[in-house]
């Protein structure tokens, strides 16, 4: 019998989402009609977005801090360095300072930070809140207005906050929304449906099915993300959006940050932890990665690009 490559036919496909418009160079996510490149060339390489914060982030691990020490006071400079020196495709500006228990910055101040970053770089932005369910929707609304027509990704809409407000801000000011569920496909489906009821389409939504870090439940993420991508290709229209990974969760793992002689230097352990976490998610179908360490970003991009060649 002859050898023939095992190629599948897929009834469904992943929607393509454009991030960046107006004064931004656009980046495209998703668009796959197949699982692997030997079945069909993959349309878009994976994208890495570099984490930047609106405050000098006291908790950042040392291997990251040392690269950004000089720019941490100004999110614009920080973003510029990520793009210029480390080749970020995109930048995520986390508005951590708006957290009521952090600095309680006002939505107006958040909008000013967004303007600073928009001025500094011409890559598309992800705009993240502080994680406070009361405040995030109003912060994201103000940020969305400040970045009108630039097609940022608003992070995030989830079941614990006023996702309608976030969706409306995206529709009104031409942005996309990150739809975040916690390792739960049914929750993801429901949330996506709700968001589409608010006027967003498949091309305006990116999903974050949650990245549990290497050693901290990565197997749960592997299963959920694999099943989500397979569902998309099988034709489930509620799950056909590209996926995002909060790869920086890797830095929460002890093995990444804890000083321990027997484990060798954190300088190397940390970046590998982030690479392996991101890479594993990439192999399950994730399209965009939120990351922190320059070396991890470089390695992930290099590998990612070969998968679309």
């Amino acid at each position, binding site marked *: 019998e002859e050898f023939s490559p095992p190629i599948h036919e897929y009834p469904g496909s992943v929607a393509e989402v454009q991030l960046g418009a107006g004064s931004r160079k656009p980046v495209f996510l998703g668009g796959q009609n197949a699982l692997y490149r030997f079945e069909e060339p993959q349309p878009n390489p994976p994208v890495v977005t570099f984490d930047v914060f609106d405050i000098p982030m006291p908790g950042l691990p040392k291997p990251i801090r040392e690269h950004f020490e000089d720019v941490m006071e100004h999110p614009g400079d920080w973003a510029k360095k990520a793009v210029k020196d480390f080749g970020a495709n995109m930048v995520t500006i986390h508005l951590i300072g708006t957290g009521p228990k952090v600095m309680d910055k006002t939505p107006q101040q958040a909008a000013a930070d967004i303007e600073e970053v928009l001025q500094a770089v011409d890559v598309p932005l992800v705009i993240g809140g502080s994680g406070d369910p009361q405040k995030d929707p109003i912060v994201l609304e103000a940020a969305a207005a400040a970045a009108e027509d630039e097609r940022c990704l608003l992070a995030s809409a989830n079941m614990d906050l006023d996702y309608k407000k976030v969706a409306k801000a995206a529709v009104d000011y031409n942005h996309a929304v990150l739809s975040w569920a916690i390792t739960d496909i049914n929750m993801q489906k429901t949330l996506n449906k709700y968001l589409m009821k608010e006027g967003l389409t498949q091309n305006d939504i990116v999903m974050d099915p949650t990245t549990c870090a290497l050693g901290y439940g990565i197997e749960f993420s592997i299963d959920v993300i*694999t099943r989500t991508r397979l569902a998309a290709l099988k034709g489930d229209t509620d799950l056909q959006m590209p996926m995002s990974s909060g790869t920086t969760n890797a830095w929460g793992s002890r093995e990444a940050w804890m000083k321990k002689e027997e484990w060798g*230097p954190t300088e190397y352990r940390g970046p*590998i932890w982030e*690479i*392996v976490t991101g890479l*594993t998610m990439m192999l399950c179908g994730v399209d965009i990665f939120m990351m922190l360490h320059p070396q991890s970003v470089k*390695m992930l991009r290099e590998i990612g690009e*070969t998968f679309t060649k």
Partner: protein
Amino acid sequence: MAVTAMDVYRLLPKTNCAKCGEASCMAFATKLSEKETDLELCTQLSANEADKLADVLAPAVREIMIGKGNKAMMVGGDEVLYRYELTYYNPTPLVIDISDDMDPAEFEERVKKIEGTEFERTGELLTLDAIALRNKSGDVSKFKEAAEKLKSSKLALVLCSFDPEAMKAALEAVGDERPLIYGATENNIEEMAALALEYNCPIALFVPNDLEKMKELSRILRTKGIKDIILDPGTFVNDGIGDTLDNFVMMRRLAVEERDDDFRFPILGVPAIAWLDNGEDDINTAIKEATIAATLMDKYADMMIIHGTEIWELIPVLTLRQSVYTDPRKPQAVDPGLYEFGEINEDSPVALTTNFALTYYTVEGDLKAGKANGYLLVLDTEGRAVDVSVAGSQFNGKAVADLIKETGIEDKVKTRKMVIPGLGAPVSGEIEDESGWEILVGPRDSSALADFLREKM
């Protein structure tokens, strides 16, 4: 696709005689299909029927033993493409290479390092599995001598040479220990196959980036009656990693979905290739090797040869292996109940955690490292972490009050005060109400627990 209980049941005697220890043939069939019992336990089958069943039950990927006795390791055995469909079997052995041209002291030191490498995680000791001896010298007698030396190692062996002469010499030394012959290629397949048969050893087939040829050569080995075959489609680094991945995925699909008998064998990946012609420094090369190892671990490598031995490079790979191979059907949990640390008496402090394996062993490690004395109550959260079980409310006041009663801790200590994890703060009031104990919310991370017990209790 994996075999179903129904497929198995059809071939059983259907007498429900219960001699296998199960109540019925159906129950036995269910267990067989989940690999939780052995076919031999049914005593009511004819040899012919048993063979037929064994065939149906054979995993999509053949399970192969390398090494013997207490050096034996199992490779392959997988049934599914995705772990959530069942589970993956036989965690990918990590084989570390060593060359036959090293000076004796260096050689010995490397063997020691390979054997001694270990990393403890969630109560499990993660270690390296085998040694791959490379005939780097190209010299027949050097290869044999080095193989001889490895006889005293406690690990299984892979013999790496494409020269049948050298392979024969090494097999004369260690052929009775079932090393993996690595390997056969297009050019030496006849000679290597003869050695595999003569010494009854498993053999690896190396056919770089050409699955059509791989199929052809695999068929040749099979026709000769060789059953224990391992397939190496080549590991390519840099731009080639995409091809490598394609080959691995195609081979596994052919085995699992198409049941293509030429591909129903374990796949060997060789991340060690990263070290060949490395223009980069050792650190970057080690990071690259770990990255390739992770890629192949995620996508179907059943066995890998690695060169780097730095612990910081191996920890992520070992951890990924542990994660990918955990059985999704079983909670990762420890027994709930009462645990003791250090010296205890009726004035000892009491702390609480959950029975998720990762949580428990992290806390245990921290208590031991901090030389803490005291009791640890372990709550049954069905194997969930602290914040997960708070969110899912398995961690609640009533459950903790019940745990206090069941363990009899109130008879062992005079205190009625307990530290709970920082992340358990939302339920501290509830626990006080249900148990009548005073609750102290402890630090968020258990690394600070030992000091907390000393200072605050």
